[in-house]
């Protein structure tokens, strides 16, 4: 009995720890800062990746297919309208909308693993380009807060993170 109980208890403890680690509540300043770090990843795309052209940019179905893929795989973190969620940043900001399609494709392929975004290379390349087409079709939100910078002091963080909405 003890031989079964010990691993079961250890498993339960580790499972709870993993949930707690994944879901631990973060202050607003943390999300503000984290979003800025995620946007900064776009700038890390190598020149070769950035220069890639979207092979589906003239495909009339690419945006609709990309939207369907977005609803299936991305809304959980980035929100139904890509406005950003608790886990993922808004995609309606200048940093994303003005980025090269190749840079967005590179981020989709490589993820931002240490900041919570998984790699999406399991979606075939054409599907990732369809997603890029959809994201680029969204445009910048009307209430775009401008460049996202980390707060300078604790009092800044009290104002919360920007939340662009259409």
């Amino acid at each position, binding site marked *: 009995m003890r*031989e*079964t109980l010990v*691993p*079961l208890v*250890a*498993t339960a403890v*580790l*499972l709870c720890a*993993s*949930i707690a*680690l*994944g*879901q631990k*509540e973060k202050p607003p300043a943390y999300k503000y800062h984290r979003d800025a770090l995620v946007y900064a990843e776009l700038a890390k795309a190598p020149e070769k990746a950035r220069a890639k052209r979207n092979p589906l940019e003239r495909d009339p*179905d690419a945006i*609709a*297919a*990309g939207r*369907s*893929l977005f*609803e*299936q*795989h991305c*809304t*959980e973190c980035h929100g139904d309208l890509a406005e950003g969620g*608790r*886990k993922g940043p808004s995609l309606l900001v200048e940093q994303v909308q003005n980025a090269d399609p190749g840079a967005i494709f590179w981020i989709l*392929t*490589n*993820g*931002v*693993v*240490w*900041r*919570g*975004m*998984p*790699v999406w*290379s*399991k*979606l*075939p*390349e*054409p*599907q990732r380009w*369809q997603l890029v087409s959809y994201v680029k079709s969204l445009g910048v939100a009307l209430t775009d807060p401008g460049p996202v910078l980390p707060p300078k002091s604790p009092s800044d963080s009290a104002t919360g993170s920007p939340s662009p909405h259409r």
Partner: protein
Amino acid sequence: MLFSFFRPFLVLLFLLFLGFLLPSPAHAQENPYIVAHDHYLEEPGNLEIEYFSTFGTQRNSNAFHAFWMEFEYGATAWWTTEFYVDGQSTFGDSTIFTGVRFENRFRVLKREHFINPVLYVEYENKRGGDKLLKEVEGHDVESDYAPSNAVLSQEHDHELEFKLLLSGTHKGWNFVQNTLAAKNLSNHPWEFGYAIGASRPLALKASAKRCSFCRQNFIAGAELYGGLGNRHSFGLHDTSHYFAPVVAWNLPFDWTLRLSEGFGLNDNSHRFLLRWGVSREIPGFGSMVTRMFGGHR
């Protein structure tokens, strides 16, 4: 007896019913492998509930049906943790609970590369009657499974298993190579095994309309797996090997169905293994649990 045989199916039906109560517009995107692992981890905060069955033929004994349930949780984008419970029914014998497993997979590299390594660590607390064949290791051969459940259940193993999972995806094709090293904690030698696989979706572009029968929802492939002996006698002699075509159907609402027909490649292997599995991903499970306990919304 009859109830024990059908009990896992009743549990499955209950879980499927629960799954339908959790609406989600998403399509899962799962590879079809049942034995091999690729480098894709569970998305952070998502829980995947999986049920698998293996029907196997057995020379000089009765055929069997082994089954297991997996609860796979994405703790972070680089760490997936999993818990298994498993059992088996041997026809004309009995149904027994065969053990629990606790598995963790860790992504090593920050970015996507040609080959992506993932470290796999598993603890198994199982009885000798375990017939899942979820991996083949050491000198596992068909005749090991022939004794009755009463005899097999007398053995009780605590085992640590380590795998190096190498995987890459190129032009829609996913290739995996897993190397396994397992250590029974009661003074047994290290045992080794392997699994390799390849798969590809039937279509690479997504269609603009949401559909269940579109070609992009089907992923087909094959896997090859077997034992490589142990520390004292490493190699292919007295080992068993299998080849299995596999197919996955990614359905709406995050359901995935998998089917695999495994064929033994030598006299030490079971002649035929039929496997199938159904899984349901629950997006945002971590957030749901947090809210349940009064966490942030």
